[in-house]
C-alpha cells in the first residue's frame, strides 16, 4: 500500500514571509511529488525559496496555503504535536552538521536511535555502532565532534539521521562545507544507504559535481519549480 502512495506530495503550495506591506511571496504554486526510495535534487539560485520548501516538507514550519502531504499526513492545519510526531519519521541533514558538541559520535547517533520506541538501551547503542560502521567511522566511536574532520562530522550526521529509520531524508547542501572529493564520498554514501532503507531523499544543492546521483533534478526559480528532466516513476 505504501508504495502506491508518494512519500511527499505537494500541491499548489504558496508561502509568504512578513506581514502587511512587507509581505513577500517566497513560494508560488509549487507542485512536487517524491516516490518512496526516489532521490530528488533541488537546485536553484540563493534566496529562491529552496530552504523554505525543505522546512515546509520537513514539518518545521506551518503551511499557510496549499497542500503538503508527507508520509501520508496532511500538514495544512496540522498541530505542533502532529508535526513533532511526524518529524520522527523524517531524517534531516544540515549544512552545518549540527551535532551535539557534548556527545561522542556514538552518543550523537544514538540520539537518533533513541527516537525509536520499543527498543532497549543496549539495542539502540548497538544500532548506533552499526550505523557508524556503515559510514566507515567504527574507529571513531568515542570521539567528540570537535575531534572529527568536516567529512567525518557529516558522516556522523548521516548516521544519526538514518538511525531513526526515516522514510524520508531531507538534506540541505550537505556538501557545502566539504572539499569536492569528500563531498562526493558523502553523497554516494548517503544515496547508497538511503536506497538500502527504501528511504526517499530530497537534497538541496549547489554542487554541480554531485548532480548525477539524482534520479530526478528539480530546479527552482523565484518561488516556482521547474522539472529539469521528465519525472519518472511518480504517480504511475
Amino acid at each position, binding site marked *: 500500500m505504501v508504495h502506491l502512495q508518494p512519500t511527499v506530495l505537494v500541491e499548489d503550495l504558496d508561502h509568504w514571509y512578513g506581514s502587511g506591506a512587507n509581505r513577500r511571496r517566497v513560494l508560488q504554486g509549487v507542485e512536487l511529488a517524491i516516490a518512496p526510495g526516489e532521490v530528488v535534487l533541488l537546485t536553484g539560485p540563493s534566496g529562491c525559496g529552496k530552504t523554505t520548501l*525543505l522546512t515546509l516538507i520537513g514539518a518545521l514550519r506551518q503551511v499557510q496555503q496549499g497542500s503538503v502531504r508527507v508520509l501520508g499526513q496532511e500538514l495544512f492545519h496540522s498541530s505542533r504535536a502532529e508535526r513533532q510526531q511526524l518529524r520522527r519519521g523524517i531524517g534531516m541533514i544540515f549544512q552545518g552538521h549540527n551535532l551535539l558538541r557534548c556527545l561522542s559520535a556514538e552518543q550523537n547517533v544514538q540520539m537518533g536511535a533513541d527516537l525509536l520506541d520499543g527498543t532497549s538501551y543496549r539495542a539502540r547503542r548497538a544500532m548506533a555502532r552499526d550505523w557508524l560502521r556503515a559510514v566507515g567511522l567504527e574507529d571513531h566511536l568515542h570521539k567528540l565532534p570537535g575531534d572529527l574532520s568536516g567529512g567525518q562530522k557529516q558522516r556522523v550526521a548521516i548516521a544519526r539521521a538514518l538511525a531513526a529509520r526515516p522514510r524520508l531524508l531531507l538534506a540541505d547542501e550537505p556538501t557545502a562545507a566539504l572539499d569536492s572529493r569528500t563531498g562526493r564520498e558523502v553523497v554516494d554514501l548517503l544515496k547508497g544507504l538511503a536506497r538500502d532503507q527504501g528511504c526517499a531523499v530530497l537534497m538541496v544543492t549547489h554542487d554541480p559535481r554531485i548532480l548525477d546521483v539524482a534520479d530526478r533534478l528539480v530546479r527552482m526559480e523565484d518561488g516556482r519549480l521547474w522539472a529539469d528532466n521528465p519525472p519518472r516513476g511518480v504517480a504511475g
Partner: protein
Amino acid sequence: MSGFWQGRRIPLAWLLLTRQPARLAVALAGIAFAGILMFMQLGFRDGLFDASVTIHKLFNTDLVLLSPRTMSSIAMAGFPRRRLIQAMADPDVVGTTPVNWNLLLWRNPETRKTRSILALGFEPSDPLFTDPVIATRAAALSQQGRVLFDERSRPEFGPVASWFRQGRVVDTEVAGKRVRVAGLISLGPSFGADGNMITSRETFLRINPNTTRGSIELGLIRLRPGADAAKVAERLRGSLPNDVAIYTKQGFVEFEKNYWRSSTAIGFIFTLGAGMGFVVGCVIVYQILYSDVSDHLPEYATLMAMGYPLIRLLGVVAREGLLLSVLGYIPAWLAGQGLYALIRSGTKLPVAMELNRSVLVFVLILAMGLGSATLAMRKLADADPAEIF
C-alpha cells in the same frame, strides 16, 4: 513506552554539565558558597537562641517560679521566697530550691580586668542542677567566700580552670568582695552570660549586700514522679498570689528564647543573611543555566527538528538544575560542618549540623536550582527548528 530498560536514555543533562568542567566548577562554587552562607547564618541564629538557654536546660526542676517583672535572664526581678514554701502545700510538690540570680563583675585573676559573670546563689544542700557531679562539689560551698567556677566560661575570665587544676589557690574578687575558687563545674556560656559561677546563698548575700532578705529571683519546684506538670502549674496559678509567674521547665526555656527572638534583631538579621545567600545562589545558577541554554540553542533546535518533544528538552534543563543542586549541596554541607566546628571553638556557642537545618538548606538549594532552571527554560522557546537549515 514500557519497561525501565527501554526508558533509559543518554544522560544528556549530565554530559552537558560535565563536558564543560570550567562552567560546572563555577556553578558548583556558586551554589556551595550560597549553601555555606545559609548554613552559617542559620547556624548562628539557632546557635544564639540555643545558647541563650544553656543554663536553663540544666536545672533540676519540673516547674519554675519567676517574678512577673522578669523579662529575661539578664534582667531577673525578685519575688518573696515564701511563695516556694506555699507551693510545698500542693500534694504533688516534693521539693523546692530557692535560687538567687544576678550578673556580677568578676575580676580576672591574671589581668585584673573585670567582666560580667552570671552568679547563682543557693543552699549547697539543695539540688540545683541535674548533673550529680555538681551536687558533690557543692559541699565545698558550705565554707564562706567559696565559689564554684564554670570551666567552660569564656577565656576572658582568666586561666581559672588551668590554675585550679595545677593546684594553685585561685583567689579573686566578685563585685569587689574577695572569693576563693573551691572547685570547677561544667555548664557552658550562654548568650546573656559569658561565664557562670555558683555559690552558697550566704556568700551570695555577702557579695550582694543590697539583696532584699527573703527575696529570690528563681524558684525551682520538683514534682512527684508521674505528676502532670501543666496541671500542677495551673493549680499553683490559682493558689499563689500574682506576684509570681509559673512556668514548666520547657516553658521557662521557651520564655527565654522568645525574649531573644522577639526583643532583639538577631532573628531578623540572620534570617535576612540566609535570604541573601539564597538570592545570590539563585542569580548564579540562573546565569549558568541561561548561558548554557543559549550556547546550546542550535543543538536544542536540532533535537526538536529530529522529532524530540519540547517537554524532553525542558526535562534536560530541569535535570541540569537538579544535578547542580545536589552536587553543590555536598561541598556546602561539608564546609558547613567545618565552619560549625570553627564557631564552636571560637565562640563556644552550641552550633551543630542539625538534621532540621541540613534538610532546610537542601530544600532551599533545590528550590534555587529548579527555580533557576524554570526561568532558564523560557530561553528554550527561542529554539526554532525552522531556523537551523
